[in-house]
């Protein structure tokens, strides 16, 4: 059945109710087989019923598509004779102890290297900011100041062009890294890591070149002023570090260090990837507990207690290392209370009252609704991109367009909103040169201070600025613009996270909410818009990604404050409930869009009584217990599957065109077939001297599938 045909047929899915069903079916069907038609009619009626019940007619075919690019990872221990022999060896206990020790060692290294990546990103962003503000803009604006005394021609727009040009340059680097070097490095990476931990081999997701593209790319896209965060990519980077270190070799470089051979299988690597993701969160937010909980809540599908401890260890080491490096970089070496990449400041007056709880709940509801809206719109946009913006040049151009518009919108807002305030009112607004544009001498633009800071700094000033620092209009305009820009940015081909942009737009409308509350109840003192900004930020992010426990931990650890734990929990829970009424979390939506066959915790709705053989393909490539080498080679060449069932006989079926498979005897992996062929073991009792003597030395990882065609 051709693709086009299939799509057209279901898009005109419903048979006209006024039409005779049989005639209608004949119109639709291509087969004239009577038996078939009866079956099809039955199924079609079922479907009709289904679609009537669920009003599901909106969904088009490609929604349910699953790509065949993805194969599974293999978590089974292959209990072959080598394995059994290894257990009998006298020093087996020692081997096990050594492996266990190495696991901790690897986790330590994961923490250290993840922190190095995080520090690298942070330092790059810092330098980029330095160049942007202190070299380009300082020079241009002071030049403008001199010129404007005499002339009448405007000069500020040259500053704007320079700003946009610089942003576009950096974003172009990020986009080219993603488009031409490692396509999988685009976006936040959390969906891919989630899939990987679920047991799906996403090609190239944990390669070194992905890590490099991701780290350099995210530094460029954040430095280039996109509405992007470095936290999501940090999680992906941590996961790559986890996978890379535990394997002790690199495909991208073609180097094999020959260490940690016992971890060269999917099962061990999965655990280290979980630890790496946790270390990534820990480094990004200075939140080791949040990191472990993130891996538990969002990432891992496979879990055990030992893993928890090792993850915690990785997170701890990662936090420690990143704090140390950054404190050294900022000239206060040894000052370990540095807070990771995202520093949200500390709340000074931390208290809330029981009558504020309904307000927090309301914020949760707003966050859930806005989050669901965000997910809906972003999903639509991503679908559009998937179909229509698929050429490399097109994607590059889109990135540049987003960069240019993001930069320009900041200027446009300062230009349009006359929000100049005298300097000295808000001590937390840092004194960037650019904030002065179009303001009188000695004033700065409050909007500009939001737009032209690093997003983390903007979040911080929304949380902690005095009550009069931002006008209501400023906040409305800023939150809407940032929401839309984030919507547009997430999904273009640059590494970009969602956490900070979502927190920022949430903090803006949360602060607005706080100001409104303050106006409504002027008699009650102690209303601080900062804490509503915090609640709004949590609600917005929770509404989009639908995480609860890990976000609570991350928010509390990033603000170093446990007092607002309860409001944050409330807000996140409510945001999740409200959001789940409308749609699923953004990461899940993106997994669906990537057509990854992820195995969720629950079967899809209404599928409990559908048997597996109705959904699975029937033309199974199976092996018999005795096979010709030529057939195996042929199979390995022309399929990408990671494993094949072994059956006792495959015979031509007299009735159907599919062969008659006998009984299932077992399962053989692609990698095992490769090993057998490589070592020329063609019969079972062939004692080949090529084989390694130790089980733990001969494990091989399964990315070998990519070599299949060669």
């Amino acid at each position: 059945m051709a693709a086009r045909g299939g799509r057209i047929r279901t898009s005109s899915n419903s048979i006209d109710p006024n039409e005779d069903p049989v005639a209608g079916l004949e119109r639709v069907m291509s087969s004239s087989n009577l038996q078939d038609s009866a079956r099809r009619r039955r199924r079609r009626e079922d479907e009709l019923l289904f679609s009537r019940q669920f009003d599901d007619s909106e969904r088009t075919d490609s929604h349910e598509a699953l790509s065949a690019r993805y194969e599974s990872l293999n978590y089974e221990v292959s209990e072959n004779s080598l394995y059994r022999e290894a257990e009998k060896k006298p020093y087996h206990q020692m081997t096990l102890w050594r492996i266990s020790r190495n696991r901790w060692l690897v986790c330590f290294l994961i923490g250290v290297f993840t922190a190095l990546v995080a520090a690298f990103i942070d330092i790059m962003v810092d330098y980029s900011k330095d160049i942007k503000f202190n070299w380009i803009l300082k020079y241009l604006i002071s030049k403008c100041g001199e010129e404007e005394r005499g002339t009448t021609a405007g000069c500020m727009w040259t500053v704007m062009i320079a700003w946009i040009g610089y942003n576009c340059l950096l974003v172009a680097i990020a986009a080219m890294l993603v488009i031409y070097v490692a396509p999988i490095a685009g976006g936040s990476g959390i969906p891919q890591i989630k899939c990987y931990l679920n047991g799906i081999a996403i090609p190239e997701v944990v390669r070194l070149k992905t890590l490099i593209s991701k780290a350099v790319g995210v530094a460029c896209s954040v430095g280039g002023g996109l509405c992007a965060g470095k936290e999501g990519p940090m999680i992906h980077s941590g996961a790559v570090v986890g996978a890379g270190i535990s394997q002790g070799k690199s495909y991208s470089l073609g180097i094999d260090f020959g260490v940690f051979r016992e971890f060269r299988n999917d099962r061990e690597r999965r655990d280290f990837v979980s630890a790496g993701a946790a270390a990534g969160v820990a480094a990004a937010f200075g939140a080791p507990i949040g990191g472990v909980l993130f891996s538990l809540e969002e990432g891992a599908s496979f879990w055990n207690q030992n893993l928890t401890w090792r993850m915690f260890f990785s997170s701890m080491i990662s936090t420690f290392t990143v704090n140390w490096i950054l404190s050294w970089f900022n000239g206060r070496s040894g000052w370990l209370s540095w807070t990771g990449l995202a520093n949200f400041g500390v709340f000074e007056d931390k208290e809330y009252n029981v009558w504020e709880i309904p307000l927090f709940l309301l914020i949760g509801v707003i966050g859930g609704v806005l989050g669901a809206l965000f997910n809906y719109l972003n999903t639509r946009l991503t679908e559009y991109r998937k179909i229509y913006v698929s050429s490399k040049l097109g994607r590059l151009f889109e990135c540049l367009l987003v960069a240019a518009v993001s930069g320009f919108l900041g200027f446009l807002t300062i230009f349009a909103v006359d929000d100049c305030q005298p300097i000295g009112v808000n001590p937390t607004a840092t004194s960037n040169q650019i904030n002065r544009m179009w303001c009188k001498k000695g004033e700065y633009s409050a909007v500009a201070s939001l737009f032209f800071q690093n997003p983390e700094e903007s979040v911080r000033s929304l949380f902690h600025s005095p009550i009069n620092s931002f006008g209501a209009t400023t906040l409305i305009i800023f939150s809407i613009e940032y929401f839309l820009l984030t919507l547009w940015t997430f999904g273009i081909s640059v590494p970009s996270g969602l956490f900070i942009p979502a927190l920022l737009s949430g903090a803006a409308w949360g602060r607005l909410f706080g100001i409104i509350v303050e106006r409504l109840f002027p008699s009650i003192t102690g209303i601080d818009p900062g804490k509503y900004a915090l609640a709004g930020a949590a609600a917005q992010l929770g509404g989009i990604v639908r995480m609860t426990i890990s976000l609570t931990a991350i928010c509390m650890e990033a603000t170093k404050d446990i007092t607002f734990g309860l409001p944050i929990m409330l807000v996140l829970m409510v945001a999740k409930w409200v959001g789940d009424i409308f749609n699923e979390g953004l990461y899940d939506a993106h997994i669906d869009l990537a057509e990854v066959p992820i195995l969720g915790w629950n079967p899809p709705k209404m599928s409990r009584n559908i048997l597996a053989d109705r959904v699975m393909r029937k033309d199974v490539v199976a092996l018999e217990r005795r096979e010709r080498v030529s057939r195996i080679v042929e199979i390995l060449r022309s399929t990408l599957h990671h494993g094949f069932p072994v059956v006792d006989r495959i015979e031509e079926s007299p009735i159907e065109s599919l062969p008659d498979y006998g009984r299932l005897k077992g399962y053989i992996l692609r990698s095992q077939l490769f090993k057998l062929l490589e070592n020329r073991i063609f019969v079972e009792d062939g004692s080949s001297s090529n084989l390694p003597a130790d089980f733990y030395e001969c494990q091989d990882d399964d990315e070998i599938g990519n070599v299949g065609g060669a």
Partner: protein
Amino acid sequence: MSSINFLRIVLLSILSFSTLSVTQLTLDTAPISDDPWDLDGPCQKYVEKLAIVQSEMVACATNWSIPPKVCTNCYSYYINFKQYEYETKHLDNVFSLDNRTCSQVIYDNYLLSYSSEISTALTNKIWEHSRCDSCIEINWNFPQNKSEPVFSDRTLQFQQRLYEWRNCVVNYTSGNVLEQDLTNGSKICNWCKTPFNELFGYYWKIYITPDEDFCVDVETTMNDTIHLWNDVWQCAERQDRDRDLAGIMITFSTLLLLTALFYAASYIQGGGQTRNLIRYSRLLTDPRGQRSRLLSSGMSDADLVHGSSSTSSLQYNVPVHQTR
């Protein structure tokens, strides 16, 4: 430097009255030194002296609180106070009646040490919050009682420029500047624009440099000056937005056009490569040709060989599965 000395003289004359009265007050309310029941009698006079220097500092700070200008005005009191605080902390040779040093008595003996609380407040809340170190650096020399204040260069430069501007304003107005009719403002604006621009330029250069700071004195002085200039005399030049309007509009329309064109063009161009959707749940009979020869092993060798030669290719067309 002369201007600072001048300032100091003015200050001292202002403060002399208040200081005197405060001193009087301190002595009146002090406990009687020769209380026979007081073990700490010998230390009492040191506390009293500390009280005086503290209250001098407090008075000065409060006097200079609108606008806050503690650093440039109260540094002598601050030095005095810190000096005497140092001395009370090193009273190792003076003992109370139970043979403890007076330093111990003053700072460690009781539940609360008011004097130490006030000292901390003066040091942290007043002096350090005002970032005084950015304007005055004091070379402490406690043992010899010779601590020297050194005004930082940028403060002096700022002050010089401030006075230039003020002189300009005074020259062009007669008598009291602020009580004059404020409609005069526009004239002043034109006359004294250059000194103001220089003042502002100098201030702004330091203000935006990340690691350089002014103390609160300078900041508030400048803020008040800006306020006077901008809002009271209305001298501020409006940064004219209209001049940049054309540039902004051109950029705006270009970007809008590009965005619209890009998405429209990619929509018209249509959706990339065609996709190969297979619905396994609907497949009843035939698997596709490419794969069918892999299925059964009971085929002849010739068939296999033929198959491999014709279709073993790297371009394995990736199909897309469909669950429903």
